[in-house]
């Protein structure tokens, strides 16, 4: 019973915060509702027994990706009037998108009901006596090793690409030379003098 209650709690919160993500006027609030949706989705993952995926969802999406979203959105100075001005032009596109997504959901539900793919047979993918992480690791690092490495490579290329694209060499920047800072000693920088009365100090 507790599982059922938890499921409905998480499910309702995911849907509600998803809706509020697109409905709220303040973009920072939108990002926060998105985070709420991620969080509750992680709760749903825990309920179906995929705790590793749930934790990854929180660590990667909530802990890193959404922080960057929030960063960008907080820095933006958004003009709401301008944001809404394109609405009249784009609403047919939006309706089309809703129709496509809605019909996809109907088709998916129908396929599930018809049982053609026999998804129910895959309901318990984790082998007995093995934790979630071990099962996933055994698959990723043996059977799907090349796919996994390929995905890693794609991410690496994307990262290098992003760095190269945004990097610009700026002139006139005085960087820190840490080795020189560490080598500097008091006797290089300080000179103690004992001037006599009535005399100045030449430095």
């Amino acid at each position, binding site marked *: 019973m507790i599982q059922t209650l938890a499921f409905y709690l998480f499910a309702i919160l995911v849907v509600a915060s998803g809706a509020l993500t697109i409905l709220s006027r303040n973009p920072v609030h939108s990002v926060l509702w998105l985070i709420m949706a991620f969080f509750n989705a992680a709760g749903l993952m825990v309920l179906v027994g995929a705790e590793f995926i749930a*934790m990854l969802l929180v660590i990667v999406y*909530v802990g890193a990706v959404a922080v960057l979203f929030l960063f960008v959105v*907080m820095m933006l100075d958004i003009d709401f009037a301008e944001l809404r001005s394109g609405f009249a032009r784009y609403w047919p596109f939006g309706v089309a998108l809703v129709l496509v997504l809605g019909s996809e959901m109907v088709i998916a539900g129908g396929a599930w009901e018809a049982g053609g793919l026999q998804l129910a047979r895959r309901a318990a993918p984790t082998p007995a006596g093995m934790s*979630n992480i071990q099962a996933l690791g055994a698959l990723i690092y043996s059977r799907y090793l090349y796919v996994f490495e390929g995905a890693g490579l794609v991410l690496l290329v994307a990262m290098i690409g992003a760095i190269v694209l945004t990097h610009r060499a700026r002139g006139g920047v005085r960087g820190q030379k840490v080795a020189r800072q560490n080598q500097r000693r008091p006797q290089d920088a300080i000179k103690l003098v004992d001037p006599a009365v009535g005399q100045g100090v030449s430095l």
Partner: protein
Amino acid sequence: MISWFTGFLPYEGAWFVATIIDILVIALPLMLAVAMIIYADRKIWAAMALRRGPNVVGPFGLLQSFADGLKVFLKETIVPSSANRGLFLIAPIITFTVALVAWAVIPFGARAVLADINVGLLYILAVSSLGVYGVVLAGWSSNSKYPFYSAIRAAAQMVSYEVSIGFVLVTVVLWAGSFNMQTIVLAQKGEILGLFNFNGLNPLLFPMSVVFLISSMAETARAPFDLTEAESELVAGYQTEYSSMSFALFWLGEYGNVLLMCALNATLFWGGWLPPIDWAPLYYVPGIIWLFAKILAFFFIFSWVKATVPRYRYDQLMRLGWKIFLPLSLLWVFLVSGWLMLTRYGA
């Protein structure tokens, strides 16, 4: 405890009541510990500065934190008129809650752990990555310059050090062969020729324990990494606009996080609730006392560092995180996994 409650409740009700009681059994002593640790911090700091520290309220000033709490409780909560009211009030609650929630997976004894889940360490990583939201939201919703600077600094700092903390945790997980906190503790039993119950002195893991200790100071924004509330530059950082209980919640959450990091240092590298030496009579002392002693030892190190080390510059902080700790911990992941391939999982 569940079985005792099933005597007069259905199983689910019994589970519910037992879990609530377990949570209270962890959270209430934790709040007391936070109050006393604030006092200890001030006393240690004072002693190192040749001052007396709090000594008026109660014997030796022991009740100082409670007096402060009462005072703060009676103050008026002020919300700046141009602040984003809802987020402004939620931010300290997030910080405080996150600091408490992570304790669910810390093992206090052989069977004393609230949630013995097999992704315990990932859970801690996930929860600690949430901590940044309290700070960022506080800084943004205050609608004030210094808090916002502080929030940006805090976000960059926490995200940077989480990377190296993640790699350090990977070495620990590789060594223990599990993400479960209890297994990680038990894997340290009889380390180093069967003498000691910690792997902090294991030559492969010792550098990582040092990296983790320093990173945990940076992650909790303690001195010398307290740039988020550097009072000479940012007044009080993200807490500037806060007053009364909302300020107190930040304060409690911060020290709760410090205690959590001390507990993690103790659990991951120094044997958690196991006695330090694998010698039978030491096992008569309850595990929670060993864990507490280790937490207090680490807290003393935290206070010691706070009292003696000057604050880092921001570029030094970033350099330490990205250019030193990240490559070092990455290298150590290779070393540890290579060593384990050679010795434990070879062929």
